[in-house]
């Protein structure tokens, strides 16, 4: 492959080294300016809608008021309030529990479907579209759809339960069932997305390796564990991180279905942040909880990056 470096044209021969250095410097400066021009719109959006809000959050964790009266410096009061607030703890516990249920479930189901889609010789296109339909719906729509499906009186699941002779189950009205039910609804909605993601990963795998593995007499399950899973590491890396970031922000379906109930069993961190601003107007408290969420997600993402890094 011939590679022509723009710096090595004929003109260079006639330049003195000092002139050459000067021109090179000017060239670098111009490239830097051009690069920042290309990055400009994103950097402005980054500063206004990410950097300023995060700094604002940090400052607000040490202040009170700000909505009606002037803000006052209160030291660590907000932090004390947040850590001693039982509902804040409950909201963190619920959010983590929800993520621990929803993420593994959606990954396993999506992986099985992706493997199946990868195996079939034809008919994949309409199946992909059908599997993807739930993903296209807003979370609130998915939530409302499932109020039908799970309804104690006319939902299809309780219809089956009654037919089998059981008592109808009030999925969203039960303190132990409500959170897993919401996780289940999000799994229903997310399966299409992750199936396509994993399918893309599978499709990009080198087929020759499998031939070799098969000649060596490796069975299907062994091939999957020894070859497919390790080769899909980049896909999993993206999947785990992205799913963690998204799921720890659980809000829409809780807001639409249970509003945190019954008995706070589904209050999520985001819902509590929302309430602290719009229901009881305690900005300092909400900011502290928000800042905690930011730190948690950043740390978790860092930890996952460390655990999933390429060990070569």
């Amino acid at each position: 492959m011939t590679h022509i470096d723009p710096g090595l044209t004929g003109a260079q021969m006639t330049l003195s080294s000092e002139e050459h250095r000067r021109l090179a410097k000017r060239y670098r400066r111009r490239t830097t300016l051009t690069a920042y021009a290309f990055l400009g719109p994103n950097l402005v959006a980054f500063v206004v809608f990410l950097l300023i809000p995060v700094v604002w959050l940090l400052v607000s964790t040490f202040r009170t008021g700000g909505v009606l009266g002037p803000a006052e410096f209160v030291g660590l009061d907000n932090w004390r309030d947040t850590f001693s607030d039982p509902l804040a703890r409950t909201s963190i516990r619920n959010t983590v529990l929800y993520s621990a249920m929803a993420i593994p479930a959606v990954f396993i189901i999506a992986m099985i479907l992706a493997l199946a889609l990868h195996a079939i010789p034809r008919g994949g296109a309409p199946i992909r579209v059908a599997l993807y339909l739930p993903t296209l719906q807003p979370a609130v729509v998915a939530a409302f759809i499932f109020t039908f499906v799970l309804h104690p009186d006319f939902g299809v699941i309780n219809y089956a339960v009654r037919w089998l002779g059981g008592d109808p189950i009030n999925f969203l009205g039960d303190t132990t069932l409500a959170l897993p039910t919401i996780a289940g609804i999000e799994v229903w909605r997310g399966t299409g997305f992750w199936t396509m993601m994993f399918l893309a990963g599978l499709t990009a795998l080198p087929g020759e390796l499998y031939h070799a593995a098969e000649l060596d007499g490796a069975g299907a399950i062994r091939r999957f564990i020894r070859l497919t899973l390790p080769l899909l590491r980049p896909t999993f890396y993206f999947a785990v991180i992205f799913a963690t970031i998204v799921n720890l922000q659980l809000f829409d379906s809780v807001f639409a279905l249970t509003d945190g109930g019954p008995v706070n069993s589904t209050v999520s961190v985001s819902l509590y942040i929302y309430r602290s601003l719009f229901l009881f107007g305690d900005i300092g408290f909400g900011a502290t909880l928000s800042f905690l969420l930011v730190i948690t997600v950043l740390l978790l993402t860092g930890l996952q990056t460390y655990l999933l890094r390429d060990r070569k």
Partner: protein
Amino acid sequence: MTAMHTTEHKKRGAVASKDRARSGLPRSRPAISLSYVILFVGVAIALVPFLYVVSTSFKESTSLFSYPPDWIPSPIFWGNFESLFADHPFAQWTFNTLFVSGAVTALKLWFDSMAGYALAKMEFAGRRGVALLLLLSVAIPISALIIPMFFVVRYLGLLNTYWALILPPLANPLGIFMARSFIVGIPDDLEASARLDGASEFTIYRKIVLPLIRPGLVVLGMFTFMLQYTSFIWPLIAVQDSDRQVLAVGISGLQSAFLQDWGLLSAGMLAAAIPITVVFLLVQRAFVFNDLSGALKE
């Protein structure tokens, strides 16, 4: 640097040019049959819940709670849809959602492909720092920023406007890295020769880079559009005026207003599902759902 680009390119090229891995995978007849069974179950679970929505949306509220439920409404009742468009600004919500999602998608594809080009191909002071900063910000949960975002947007005087819905999503940095991963695969020689011919960086971006990464941009665009179409918490906060609201929030308002009108709610959900499904079907052909996962490699 150049060497790294070239190997990346070779890797990507190999993936693109070889037969799909499927052809190399040994498949037995029982495995294929089992796969079809699994997929049938998956499709059934994905689609059956929608039947409730379709069926309920054509029923009058009084006939909703018949037991056992009858799936096919008779007679077909159009009142829910009439009410949706007559008593609620549903057409306006649909327009708002499509307009905002379209604007965000167009702007993000433009800005992200430019930023991705700079990060992939330009040597400049502070490159690593900018990349690291943007990469870190991928992990900032947006719903933790709703309170400060509310005050920033209020300070800018943009509450209750389209701008409030369009501008903040532009700060989501994920697309930059996706665009970067598409652009890294373009051979350096292509741009180098254009640069020798005197082409400016912008010309190279527009004439060489953009056409080459179109398939990737289609995927990124669909992804952005979908994320925007389904966004909920930010529109809920930034817009109070019902006429400016988006579908997801508008529909959730149909339910909590005063009583649960399941027929109306179903009609709303069905009508809201149609535009995004049509958009998806339109781009579906171009939708070689390729790896967005390359985005976070660095």
